[in-house]
């Protein structure tokens, strides 16, 4: 059996090279436990997106001395001590139109109001974070969506550079824990050679950069730059497969969820959410990535219940308000299920022991919607939560009232807590330099 040291010392033509390793086989013992890890536990960052906001008066209480989760968010109550809730932060658009179900999430994630439908005028904050902390791991970022449609993704560098979401738990498993070596059927020394050859393919492509740059115009050069940067990232990714897992006990081999249905039927979406969450927590615990994005539904939530004609989104507009209860019962039902999914996500993170705490304690999850109240497409008071303390950098359990301040204050504070050297963020009235100091530890 090939040893880890042998793999790392692999060579081609006598010169030492960085070698791509089959991930688990080299780092896990035969019982599936990780080999000794060591090193400091890194801080991770991720987003969790949901659409259709909350039912006003039924999600979060008005008091701000603590978070008071109401019926719609009842599933979050057990986690309240590890959550911060941000209410009454606004999205001033400076006269730009509110592109329904789009402007809200773009403003929250980019601190810039989109001028046109579909525009993503600036990088989303997860991309900025990944630029800062994502280069030292095998995957710069892991992006997942539970709708079955890779387009339902809320992470992008620009309108045309969007990170498509992984939709299938099986495909995610293959990407994380299946190996290129397994695919090639190589083993032992052949695996090492194979890894080196893969590296040399990428190196060869990377060397074409200058030739290309001479041939094309400035705007196209930026696009090709992105491609070559991605090639470089993949090279790094292959080389970094030799990284040591951060915590041996946490890093156990995940199981393949297998092929299954994908789509917008709510139980299917939830099942895939939970499967991908399990894989994600393992990838984080094994230091395969430090940044992630999970989208539970699409911006125009097409989640549906079997045998019913209306989707979550159409219900928010077309369902009659129950006069006694004061809300749209079916839309409310979906909102509750969405919050249950978020609770499940938190539970999974909090269930992975890591050092003296849990994976959740070493993570900062930025969870938010695209509207506050879907029925009227409001983009002020969009619900935002931070979950986890980023290894003690944030206080938790707080309800922060924004008093109409721009919602970008939350994103700025999050990025500053993660160590990004930002003094201000955003454009127009969404630009801010005001940190929410109340939550900084």
């Amino acid at each position, binding site marked *: 059996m090939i040893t880890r040291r042998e793999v790392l010392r692999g060579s*081609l033509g006598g010169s030492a090279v960085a070698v791509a390793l089959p991930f688990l086989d080299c780092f896990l013992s035969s019982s599936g436990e990780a080999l000794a890890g060591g090193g400091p536990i890194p801080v991770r960052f991720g987003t969790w997106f949901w659409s259709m906001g909350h039912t006003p008066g039924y999600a979060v209480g008005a008091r701000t001395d603590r978070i008071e989760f109401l019926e719609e968010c009842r599933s979050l109550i057990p986690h309240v001590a590890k959550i911060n809730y941000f209410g009454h932060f606004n999205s001033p658009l400076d006269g730009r*139109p509110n592109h329904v179900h789009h402007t809200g999430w773009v403003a929250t994630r980019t601190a810039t109001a989109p001028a046109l439908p*579909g525009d993503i005028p600036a990088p989303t904050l997860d991309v900025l974070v990944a630029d800062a902390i994502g280069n030292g791991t095998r*995957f710069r*970022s892991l992006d997942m969506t539970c709708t*079955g449609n*890779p*387009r339902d993704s809320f992470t992008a560098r620009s*309108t*045309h*550079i*969007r*990170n*498509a979401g*992984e939709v299938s738990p099986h495909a995610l498993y293959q*990407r994380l824990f299946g190996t*290129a070596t397994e*695919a*090639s059927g190589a083993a032992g020394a052949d695996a090492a*050679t194979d890894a*080196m*050859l*893969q590296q040399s*393919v990428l190196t*060869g*492509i990377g*060397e*074409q950069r200058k030739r290309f740059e001479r041939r*094309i115009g400035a*705007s*196209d050069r*930026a*696009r*090709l730059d*992105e*491609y*070559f*940067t*991605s090639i470089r*990232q*993949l090279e790094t990714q292959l080389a970094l497969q030799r990284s040591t897992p951060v915590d041996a006990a946490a890093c156990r081999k995940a199981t393949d969820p297998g092929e299954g249905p994908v*789509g917008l*039927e709510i139980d299917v979406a939830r099942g895939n959410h939970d499967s991908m969450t399990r894989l994600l927590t393992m990838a984080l615990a094994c230091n395969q990535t430090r940044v992630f994005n999970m989208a539970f539904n699409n911006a125009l939530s*097409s989640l*549906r219940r*079997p*045998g*019913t*004609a*209306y*989707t979550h989104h159409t219900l928010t*507009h*077309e369902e*009659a*308000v*129950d*006069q006694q209860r004061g809300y*749209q019962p079916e839309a409310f039902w979906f909102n509750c299920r969405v919050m249950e999914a978020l609770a499940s996500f938190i539970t999974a993170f909090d269930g992975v022991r890591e050092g003296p705490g849990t994976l959740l304690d070493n993570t900062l999850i930025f969870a938010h919607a695209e509207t506050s109240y879907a029925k*009227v*497409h409001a983009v002020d008071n969009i619900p935002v939560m931070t979950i986890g303390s980023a290894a003690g950098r944030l206080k938790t359990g707080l309800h922060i009232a924004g008093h109409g301040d721009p919602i970008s204050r939350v994103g700025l504070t999050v990025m500053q807590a993660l160590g990004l050297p930002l003094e201000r963020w955003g454009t127009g009235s969404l630009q801010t330099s005001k940190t929410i100091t109340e939550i900084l530890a």
Partner: protein
Amino acid sequence: MSRRTSRAICGVLLGTLLVLSGCGAREPATKGAPPTVRLLTEAQYRNIIADVFGKQIEVAGRFDPIVRTEGLLAVGAGLATVTPSGVERYVALARSIAKQALASPNRELLVPCRPVAKDAEDPVCARQFLGTTGRYLFRRAITEEELAAVVKLAGDAARARRDFHAGLEIGLQSLLASPDFLFVTENATRDPRTGALKLDGPSRATRLSFFLWNSMPDEALLQAAEQGRLDDAPGVEAQVERMLRSPRIEHGVRALFTDMWALDDFATLEKDPTLFPAFGLAAANDAREQVLRTLVDTLLVRDADYREVFTTRKTFMTGALGIVYRVPVSMPGEWSPFEFERDDPRVGVQTQLAFLALHSHAGKSSPTLRGKAVRELLLCQRVPDPPSTVNFDRFNDPASPGKTARARLQVHSTEPSCAGCHRLMDPIGLALENFDGAGQWRDDENGESIDIAGELNGTRFADTAGLGAALADDPAAPACLVRRTYSYALGRAVQRNERKFMTYLDAQFARDRYRLPALLRRIATSEAFLKVSTPALQTAGSAAREGSAS
């Protein structure tokens, strides 16, 4: 005189005017646009692999979606790039394809030489295979510098693996993951006589082949490019005639309409299986194929007037479709021609399952979505986004829930913030309300009969035949095809300086009695099609927005 008759006469007069204005008219000058760099679309990638290595090669993997821009993925491809996860997938695909191509028995067919020894490098044979294959994949002759690098890579790998074909595999993988393959990068040179920028031969060949075949140039086209035979109009015309006669033109027409009518959305189409048990995966796949077969039959096989696609009753049927349409199918296991009866409400592609199901919700129909699709996809008319400040309380009156869509949408016409846009969409979509969310016929909705009277741009109609006729009579329909086809051909939006050329093409299309092959020929042989300008200092976004001028 009825409004309908008056409109029809206007249409005829306009057509006549367009014909007259096009008679003998000289092509208006255009300025062109800078050479493009387009990311291969998934369909193009798959077509090239099949063309170079054969259909037996499996392209198993997901492609990152391209953002549809100005109504076309082809335009989005000119602004797209590859993210880190996308590169990961391309490299994995390249590896998988190379492995299949160099495995027995494929390699016996694909590698044109035998190595000196199977367990060692053979630079001569490697050059032959990688040079030939690289020329197809890069759509131009591979340079000596490029070839030397890839042959060395293959040689190093062959030595390391002690296997000649394993070495070729690495070399081929490198070609398939190269930006020269993944990006269609046009190259232009200065004409020494005029000083004008001019696309080089291989770029001209590539522009033609992706437009007409949605794939790479074949050997004859590459040779024509390399021998300078695409440098003048007669040479281009000869190749265009050959390409239009080729069976591959069907791939091109399918790709054009798949893009223009967003049929790629079938990949994520969902219908509730409880509500629509007949509309399973087989029916969905067949529905997409049905509309493409109808288009190919109408526009290529019968070379009919494009406007006939909105009025035709001729189509093709399978067993799975027969269940949804509730019609008898003579050969359930295969495709067979089918024609709806004269009194059948299925008239035109807009009444076929593909259009009806795509532009509905998972559990119900949507007159608004269907009307929007007619406006935006068939007529190229932009419907404004919904306002953000709608008061939905009027829609939520529990005391009077409308039983039919018409009743429910009635509120829109009385709510000022909604009326402007819904008036553009609902009268079209309501005409299709006898078809449920899966496109199946229904007599009533919630026990109430359905009124399908509607209106399009001033033409009132009583049924789906009337809607089809209104679409066929509307000058926006052929004009839409002209603009989209031109934009698709170039992978960019129509520029402001091309407005006169668009009018000219409209006239030529009318003169050609709205035959699609004639339109393809007009565009492919026009000066505008191959014209390029010096790249300006502009952002990708501004380049995309310029096209809204059309």
